[in-house]
């Protein structure tokens, strides 16, 4: 028992001598002493001497908050050859001397706090932190800008990294965009070099047209099965000449890349800059696969790359860290009848609009009405379609990017087609970002885009026009616009693959299926599950700069992890007393880290031997919160360092 004066910080209101005397007779206390500054080097060496002289197995220090000097005293204990976790601290400064003025009162409280610490120490057990090796390879799931950036940064630090992308090419949503706000850079111009870098990087392996099949293990030691879907084209042999696509007789499939605004062949690459530049056969659309007759592509392929017999392949690999970068999709608008999206081809989504604007798009960059290929004169943009919505088919959150891209679209239109009238209907215009508000004001002021605060009530197709009924909340009146084209800004939602992935990774998700971060403020790019990191929109809506920033942040966290040879755990983790466990799964359900699994195990308890289902804690994953300990009715789950008996002993000592 060591009592600190902390100069006069403690000694001024707590009678340090009295505390020392009072605790001297507590059970287990062998030596009790006090000093000016316990944390000073000199006193730490006296602690060492006391440990040696009295063969101490535990130490109580009455001093400042354990948040301040717990590591200091643990180190001192370890240096003295003691287990560092056999140290308890009674906080008699922050929680006693500093807040109480009356000396006898403060002294009495300090004695009680010291007794509680002794009571806890008497039940302390030496703890050893577990160690586990780290596999120095990372997996990035998703090959959009988030995944690419994360992979590039990790590879740049010298670690192996694999990208798994479910579509035939990397690039993601950004590849579909025409220009980017607020600088109006060409999206492809800034993305393609990164795609090429990713393909060229020695440390990066791409698994396109592939999905994660299963994830096992824990931080530093994940085992992942990756399903490589059959491309029906041998990537090693294919030269990317494109003849097969030209000759393919099945050309009536809607192009996913062009948002269904153009068609593609059954054997295809999604877009010209696709990486890898290797086609895949869409077996649903392929005549050979559907009827057995055709085989044109095989015949025309001089490289003999077409392989109809190719099967899905499962690749099993080890990783130390996993990054989720699964991205987003605009929500389906089938349930928004009021905007006539399903009824009229001239009601389009903003992503479709991007494709219309794009020089490589279906209209070579001419903005025309899909119905009659006429140039529209009056264009209406509707924001918050399904965002900030309370209806069932909508999302409660703000999708964050729509205000800015709508301003971009409106501006581009007015620049390219000065004769057009452009209306934007909005609930609020949100522009918190560098140069964002300036950008929006340019749209209004320089480009004379009509911004109308209010929601569109109905879009009705009417002899070649779209009758848009809306309310102008500022002018407080109903307005009707006969538009030629209506562009909707749908809410964005996490990619549907995220939910299943979340389960595999035991990474928690919110009700909208966005991945939850370990701490909303302080650990925004980590999942609560150790070793799982988050990059891009899978964590929440964000624009390209935010995505890239987060991608880099996730990469740096991964690098930090992979740079370690082994991980040293927190020994204050949950522990299952197997004979008591009744296998009810409650602990598993409340564990935010997926640290608890169940095993059939032989258990022996007081003469009864049986094999049954019991919980098992993965110490590498457990962070020691204790949620499981309270949810466990039998008390089988306990938390080392904060055991049930220890906390109750503290309660007893305090209430004595």
């Amino acid at each position, binding site marked *: 028992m060591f009592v600190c004066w902390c100069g006069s910080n403690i000694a001024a209101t707590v009678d340090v001598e009295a505390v020392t005397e009072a605790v001297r007779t507590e059970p287990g206390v062998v030596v009790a002493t006090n000093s000016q500054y316990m944390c000073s080097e000199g006193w730490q060496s006296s602690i060492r001497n006391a440990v040696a002289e009295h063969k101490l197995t535990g130490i109580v220090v009455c001093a400042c908050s354990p948040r301040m000097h717990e590591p200091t005293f643990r180190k001192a204990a370890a240096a003295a050859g003691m287990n560092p976790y056999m140290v308890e601290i009674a906080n008699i400064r922050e929680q006693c001397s500093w*807040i109480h003025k009356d000396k006898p009162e403060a002294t009495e409280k300090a004695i009680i706090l010291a007794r509680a610490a002794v009571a806890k120490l008497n039940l302390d057990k030496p703890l050893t932190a577990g160690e586990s090796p780290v596999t120095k390879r990372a997996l990035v799931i998703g090959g959009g800008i988030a995944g690419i950036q994360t992979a590039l940064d990790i590879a740049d630090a010298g670690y192996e990294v694999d990208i798994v992308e479910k579509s035939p090419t990397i690039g993601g949503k950004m590849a579909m965009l025409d220009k980017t706000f607020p600088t109006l850079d060409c999206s492809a111009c800034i993305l393609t070099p990164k795609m090429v870098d990713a393909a060229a990087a020695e440390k990066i392996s791409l698994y396109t047209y592939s999905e994660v099949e299963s994830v096992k293990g824990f931080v530093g030691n994940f085992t992942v099965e990756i399903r490589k879907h059959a491309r029906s084209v041998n990537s090693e042999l294919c030269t990317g000449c494109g003849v097969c696509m030209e000759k393919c007789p099945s050309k009536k499939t809607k192009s996913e890349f062009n948002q269904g605004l153009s068609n593609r062949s059954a054997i295809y690459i999604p877009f010209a800059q696709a990486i890898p530049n290797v086609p895949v056969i869409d077996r649903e659309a392929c005549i050979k696969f559907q009827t057995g007759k055709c085989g044109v592509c095989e015949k025309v392929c001089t490289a003999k790359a077409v392989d109809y017999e190719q099967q899905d392949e499962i690749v099993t690999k080890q990783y130390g860290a996993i990054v989720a970068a699964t991205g987003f999709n605009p929500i389906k608008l089938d349930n928004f009848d009021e905007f006539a999206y399903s009824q009229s081809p001239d009601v389009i989504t903003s992503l479709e609009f991007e494709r219309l604007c794009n020089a490589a798009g279906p209209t070579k960059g001419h903005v025309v009405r899909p119905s009659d290929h006429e140039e529209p004169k009056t264009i209406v943009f509707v924001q918050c379609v399904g965002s900030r919505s309370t209806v069932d088919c909508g999302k409660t959150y703000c999708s964050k990017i729509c205000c800015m891209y709508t301003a971009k679209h409106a501006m581009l239109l007015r620049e390219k087609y000065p004769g057009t009238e452009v209306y934007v209907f909005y609930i609020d215009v949100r522009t918190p970002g560098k140069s964002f508000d300036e950008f929006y004001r340019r749209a209004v002021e320089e480009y004379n885009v009509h911004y109308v605060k209010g929601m569109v009530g109905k879009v009705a197709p009417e002899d070649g026009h779209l009758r848009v009924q809306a309310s102008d909340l500022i002018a407080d009146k109903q307005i009707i616009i006969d538009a030629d084209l209506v562009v909707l800004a749908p809410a964005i939602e996490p990619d549907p693959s995220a939910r299943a992935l979340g389960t595999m990774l035991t990474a928690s998700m919110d009700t909208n299926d966005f991945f939850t971060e370990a*701490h909303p403020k302080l650990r925004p790019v980590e999942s609560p599950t150790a070793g799982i990191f988050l990059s891009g929109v899978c964590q929440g809506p964000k624009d390209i700069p935010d995505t890239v920033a987060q991608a880099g942040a996730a990469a740096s966290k991964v690098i930090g992890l992979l740079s370690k040879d082994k991980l040293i755990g927190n020994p204050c983790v949950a522990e299952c007393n197997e004979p008591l466990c009744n296998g009810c799964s409650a602990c598993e359900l409340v564990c935010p880290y997926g640290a608890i699994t169940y095993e059939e195990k032989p258990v022996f308890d007081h003469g009864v031997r049986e094999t049954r289902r019991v919980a098992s804690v993965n110490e590498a994953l457990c962070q020691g919160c204790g949620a499981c300990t309270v949810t466990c009715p039998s008390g089988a789950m306990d938390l080392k360092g904060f055991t049930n008996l220890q906390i109750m002993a503290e309660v007893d000592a305090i209430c004595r």
Partner: protein
Amino acid sequence: MPIDEKGTFRPKIVAFCCNWCSYAGADLAGSSRLNYPADIKIIRVPCSCRVNPLFMLRAFQRGADGVIMCGCHPGDCHYTSGNYFARRRMTLLFGMLDYLGIEKGRTRVEWVSAAEGQKFAGTMNQFAETVKSLGECRRIEDLRCKESVG
């Protein structure tokens, strides 16, 4: 009844504080020299979800007159979800104690962040005042623990 020399009732109060927010909030109250009664003694737990209803009842058994639990604000839990579980558990437990006729003012949950030293001290002062006004806890007590002998 524990009474000090001035003749006022000195309640026993146990406060469970989570390590990351409330305990740090208590430390901040300390370093800001914000006063609250010495009747309150803090027990550090990793997270509010570590607080078992058994501990609360144990405190009453051992003669506590009030028990308060503090944790991170909802949404700020160091372990993401611990305080949500704790919130449900405590809500149900307190409802049960009330149902058994035990004074509601003797139990409390408060969310205190590491930055809220002021709130911590304020909460403690208020809670101590409430418990003091309720007097010694008689409705859930263990007489064996109250005797001076044995």
